[in-house]
């Protein structure tokens, strides 16, 4: 049985697609067979972020509507043979797929992969419903901003109502200097508010922009702090006990990040 994990957030632009691409790559690097599914039909991005856009022949809607077999639509990653992408259709919309069709699709993939990661669209409507329909776990991405945390809270409620079990939390794009000055929520603030299990934290990192534009996962870049954070999250998903950096030692964490940032600039 594959672990089917939907990555979602409610709010747009907090890093669902980046997280999906990087977790997919990190898990594959650790030897797992991984399929990533872009459920953002009509606004597909995951293929671009993974640098696979020019290899798409068939997409998810083609499979659902019977124009292609699943195997034809799956695209192998450039670097990692264990990583496959099922791209979204760009010329259709969210209503092209029903939740039961998503479940059917995932059942077909189930025997061949260890992980199936589903990149959810923003929002709480049909697209989100499709994305969580086949999942047995949910990872919620938020940034330490009021609006993102509020939307994440809404999503936690919906995930609980859908009986997917308690979701995991990833806090993305933390800017330690702002937290330090009290101008941004701290990790503790967010965890306290959402009251769900913290799977990992990812610092704001300019190298993400570069790697995303190049279509290469940040996890390949040893100097990318965000990439290393995604590797740690993947290891935790795999059941390894990797401590989250100094969650209980704020000052230490800030110092460390500040130090790293300083070095980065030099």
């Amino acid at each position: 049985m594959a672990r089917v994990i939907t990555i979602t957030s409610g709010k747009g632009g907090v890093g669902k697609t980046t997280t999906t691409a990087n977790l997919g790559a990190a898990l594959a690097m650790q030897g797992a067979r991984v399929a990533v599914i872009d459920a953002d039909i009509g606004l597909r991005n995951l293929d671009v972020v993974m640098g696979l856009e020019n290899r798409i022949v068939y997409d998810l809607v083609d499979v659902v509507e019977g124009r292609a077999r699943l195997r034809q639509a799956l695209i192998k990653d450039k670097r990692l043979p264990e990583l496959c992408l099922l791209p979204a259709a760009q010329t259709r919309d969210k209503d092209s797929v029903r939740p039961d069709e998503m479940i059917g699709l995932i059942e077909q993939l189930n025997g061949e992969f260890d992980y199936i990661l589903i990149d959810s669209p923003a929002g709480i409507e049909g697209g989100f419903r499709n994305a969580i329909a086949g999942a047995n776990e949910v990872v919620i991405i938020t940034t330490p901003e009021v609006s993102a945390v509020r939307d994440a809270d809404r999503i936690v409620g919906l995930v609980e109502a859908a009986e997917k079990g308690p979701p995991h939390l990833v806090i993305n794009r933390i800017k330690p200097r702002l937290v330090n000055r009290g101008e941004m929520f701290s990790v503790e603030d967010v965890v306290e508010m959402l009251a769900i299990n913290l799977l990992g934290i990812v610092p704001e990192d300019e190298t993400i922009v570069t790697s995303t534009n190049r279509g290469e996962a940040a996890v390949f870049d040893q100097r990318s702090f965000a990439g290393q954070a995604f590797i740690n999250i993947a290891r935790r998903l795999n059941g390894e006990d990797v401590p989250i950096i100094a969650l209980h030692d704020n000052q230490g964490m800030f110092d460390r990040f500040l130090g790293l940032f300083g070095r980065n600039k030099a």
Partner: protein
Amino acid sequence: MGDLINIKGSREGLRMHLAESAEWPAILAELHEQLGEGGDFFAGARLVIDVGDRALSEAQLAETLEVMQTYGLQPDSLASTTRESRNAARALGVTARPSAQRKTQAAPSSEGEATLISRTVRSGQVIRHQAHVTLIGDINPGAEIIAGGSVVVWGRLRGLVHAGALGNRNAVVCALELRPTQLRIADVIVRTPDDQAETLPEIARVEHNEIIVEAWRIHKRLKADS
């Protein structure tokens, strides 16, 4: 309260029983009155209309829906034992289901009972109960509790709470951390001051047409109870 119409909260939401034997115009008048008295309590709620053995015509159901709409109520479904009523429901696009009148008639209390909830109430979630509500957990911003009676929160209250929503100004709201986005008791509304930094247990109640908030102290308890 007349005994023609009985609205109760249950696990599946609000349920409205219409007396089976009474004259229809009397029922309709009572419906207007009860929903009018409820004020904000009903706004945005969905309820099950339970007509028991009454054979409701399509026209009667349409009248009922019209009155409900006036007070912001949505029909969840129509419960009935008769085919006529269920056909009327289908004709008007309301889900029809079997009546549970028999079973619930045994419950005598129309006031309803206090409820105890142990979880986090999250943004977008609404808890609606016709009596007191006790919550063990947090009420996050964007969540709402609407209660006919008082609301006691063993946790952080950061969402919206409307106590005494049926008009009871004696209702109180207390929380370990009382920082609601907005607080309503009956028809009185306040918002939390932006600079509030207290995290002590506090209690809110109405005094002289205003909601006042005080730190929880044992000697205040008798006052709050009365």
